[in-house]
């Protein structure tokens, strides 16, 4: 793989193997995490960034072991707090390419607060949330994304908690890039990760990830290859929302309510909703996050992709402007500021 770095002068020849660490991967055999790791290792050389500038930050949980397997700088922090650590890293050195790897428990339960604030600040981070709708590392309790009624070790009579939708949270927090993909749809996953990584500002990617030990098949009803065409809506910017083997179905709006229509006699392609990921208003993106199996196909792809000033840039600008206006800080002057007097 050949690419250019940010100065555009040096050739950077990196490939997937350069990003594979010497640590033995210890997820359960068959875990969806393997696929995400593989796509990440395959994708990052495309970014044209020197390896030493990558930092992978994670919290706690199965997914959070991820940094150990990337041959980059990595920080396996504490439960739910990776966005905070990543923000500090980015502010300390805005030149770094920083990823946050989190899960549904880590990012939305214990770390929900950090997630929304990190997103609203629009820090230049790529957050990948592995959603398996279960606590895996602690061996099978329901998570914030588990469906209501779910029977788990901690809910033998079924969960009475309403679940939370990660993308709704991201959009409500004013995320500038919001996307979803599926662990076993490797090609799509790789493309989405690359688009997210190339976004300047916060990028948030939810990946449906199968936990074959504690929540096996959570997504198979719509993610299995044979079912995808009928049950997954691949979002494409500027394109009408169509799905089905022959793209014979589509999503239209009746008033504010989305509905599935057959393209043909009663409806033409012109009746379908057009996806507009760069729309300044997040209303459509939000509406799409509400489409769910089995009533609707599950949308994947980029929901929202807008530009806004980035946090570390704003911080640096403020310092630069202060220096231009007031001159560079002088310690001697600072210590001697205010009322002073001399004793001889």
């Amino acid at each position, binding site marked *: 793989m050949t690419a250019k770095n940010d100065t555009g002068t040096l050739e950077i020849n990196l490939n997937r193997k350069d990003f594979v660490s010497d640590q033995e991967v210890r997820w359960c055999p068959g875990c969806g995490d393997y696929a995400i790791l593989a796509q990440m290792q395959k994708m990052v050389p495309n970014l044209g960034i020197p390896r030493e500038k990558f930092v992978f930050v994670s919290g706690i949980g199965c997914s959070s072991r991820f940094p150990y397997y990337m041959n980059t700088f990595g920080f396996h922090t504490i439960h739910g707090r990776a966005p905070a650590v990543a923000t500090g890293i980015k502010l300390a*050195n805005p030149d770094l390419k920083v990823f946050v790897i989190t899960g549904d428990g880590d990012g939305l339960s214990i770390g929900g607060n950090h997630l929304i604030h990190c997103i609203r600040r629009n820090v230049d981070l790529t957050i990948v949330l592995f959603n398996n709708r279960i606590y895996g590392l602690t061996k099978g309790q329901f998570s914030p994304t588990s469906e209501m009624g779910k029977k788990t070790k901690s809910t033998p009579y079924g969960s009475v908690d309403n679940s939370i939708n990660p993308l709704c949270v991201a959009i409500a927090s004013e995320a500038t890039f919001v996307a979803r993909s599926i662990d076993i749809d490797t090609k799509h996953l790789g493309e989405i990760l690359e688009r997210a990584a190339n976004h300047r500002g916060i990028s948030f990617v939810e990946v449906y990830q199968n936990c074959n030990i504690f929540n096996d098949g959570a997504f198979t009803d719509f993610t299995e290859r044979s079912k995808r065409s009928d049950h997954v809506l691949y979002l494409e910017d500027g394109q009408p929302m169509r799905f089905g083997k022959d793209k014979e179905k589509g999503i239209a709006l009746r008033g504010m309510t989305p509905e599935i229509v057959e393209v043909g006699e009663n409806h033409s392609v012109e009746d379908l909703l057009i996806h507009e990921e760069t729309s300044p208003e997040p209303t459509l993106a939000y509406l799409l996050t509400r489409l769910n199996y089995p009533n609707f196909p599950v949308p994947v792809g980029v929901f929202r992709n807008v530009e806004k000033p980035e946090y570390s840039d704003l911080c640096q600008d403020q310092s630069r402007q*202060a220096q231009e206006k007031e001159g560079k800080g002088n310690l001697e002057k600072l210590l001697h500021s205010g009322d002073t007097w001399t004793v001889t």
Partner: protein
Amino acid sequence: MSTETETSAATVETHKPSVEIGSAVIRFAGDSGDGMQLTGTQFTNTSAVFGNDISTLPDFPAEIRAPAGSLPGVSGFQINFGSHEIRTPGDQPDVLIAMNPAALKVNVGDLVEGGTIIVNEDSFQATNLDKAGYTENPLENGSLESFRVLKTPLTSLTLEAIKASGLDRKQGQRCKNFFALGIVYWMYDRPFDHTVNWIKSKFERNPSIVEANVAALKAGYYYAETTEIFTTHYSIRKANLAPGKYRNVTGNQAIALGAVTAMEKSGRELFYGSYPITPASDILHELARYKKFGVKTFQAEDEIAAIGAALGASFAGDLALTGTSGPGIALKSEFIGLAVMTELPLVIVNIQRGGPSTGLPTKTEQSDLFQAVYGRNGECPVPVLAPGTPGDCFWIAIEAFRIAMRYMTPVLILSDGYLANGSEPWMIPEINDIPDLCFPNATDPENFQPYSRDKETLARPWAVPGTPQLEHRIGGLEKQDITGNVSYDPQNHDYMVRLRAKKVAQITQDIPPTEIYGEPEGDALIVGWGGTHGAITSATELLRAKGLSVSSIQIRHINPLPPDLKDIFSRFKKVFVAEINMGQLWTLLRSTYLIDAISINQVRGKPFTIREISQQVESHL
């Protein structure tokens, strides 16, 4: 002695007798909206610039504006100023300025017998008396007979004085604190032009407010000079401070200045992560102003994110600082553990306040020592430092950063509300005299191992992201010695636990010999830490003046403890430990040195008075 600021005016000719005294303690007290903190600060700065030694104690309620005239709404500011060394804000005020009945009621009990009370007579009306819980007017029922009460209609006099400014009645009344300040300036023969200049620059954009406040200040001054109720005024000479250039600093300002100095001396950028909390927020306010130095301040969404971002910044090579108070430390504890495990330099400031839980947010206490030394899961050693005076906060901040980088460890600073808000004259150091804090990043890829050790300090290399070929992973899981890889090996864990403990324990090699105030041996040794330093030293001085064999020491390094303590303790018959908690250092010293020390303690949210300490020590001798 010369002065940088003009002090020429206001040596107004006065025909009343002037009495020279050595020191005085005055307390300004009023509603939290009466501007008492501002008034006290103005008196402090004027006295400092004048050349007195000073110590201050702001004492304000946790509520921003408790109901006007109520007892909980009373805000106070005490200052002790003198021509000799001043170490505490003073045990008892000589003069109380009470702006309303509630302020009188809350504070009169502290006043020295025969002391002076200046009251705003206008506010002693039925409603205010009622709010303060007075059933009859204390100015008229003889209950204040043992004091000299100077009844002054501050509100009406102020309104009269500011007429020309055009302010309405409501705005005009707000100037009465300056009228009161004018009176006190006259009483203690202080120039008022420092405050006039301050008013002019503070309210630059509002000429009528400048005019009114200056008018009120001057009117107060001349009122005291001409009215017969003020009979005497006092002069207090300049103090005999060590030669040098001085300014006034509070503990929180000094920590901020120390951090910026450490930044300059280290050649790194300073990152301050914090979440608003009393009484630590002023550090954030101060550092947020220093953008032109490249200081990065991050007001996080919570205490945990504040330290998390700071630790991230440290990983990426910044000089990282986070500040809070006790409840915030509780939230940060897990991250402190991660900093210990990942061996990254990070300074954590705890401005202690009354606890437990939310406790007494605006009152001082020293009850987080156990939390600092022990309050984390696992074997989790963290160096702990404690400044003794507001000015010492500057030096302790620099020392904390030095230890953090030299040993690659988080370091805790235990300041407290009293040091944070209290102020003292501070000799401005020569920047060139402060040693460099140059601890370079690792850059050499040859044989790089993230958990290899420096032979002398046991520090691991600081290998920051962006450095070619030093890519590595760290985290909270136990580390394999040298490689830093995750390890569950029992032998390795035992080894690493002991290694981390040893690394912190051997910081004793950097601790200078403990200074003893008084003789190096004797009947009694008073041991203190943190903001009790002034009271303990003065109590020791008092007892020695009585001919008793008493010495005292101040412990700045709480963990590890100074290596010479055992020897020092052995030379005294009795060891006392004075602290504002239930005996936390006392317990630590007893368990460490197996000495039968005696605890002197109180937890009233206020600093020790000198007598509280001296009387208790004396009773044991």
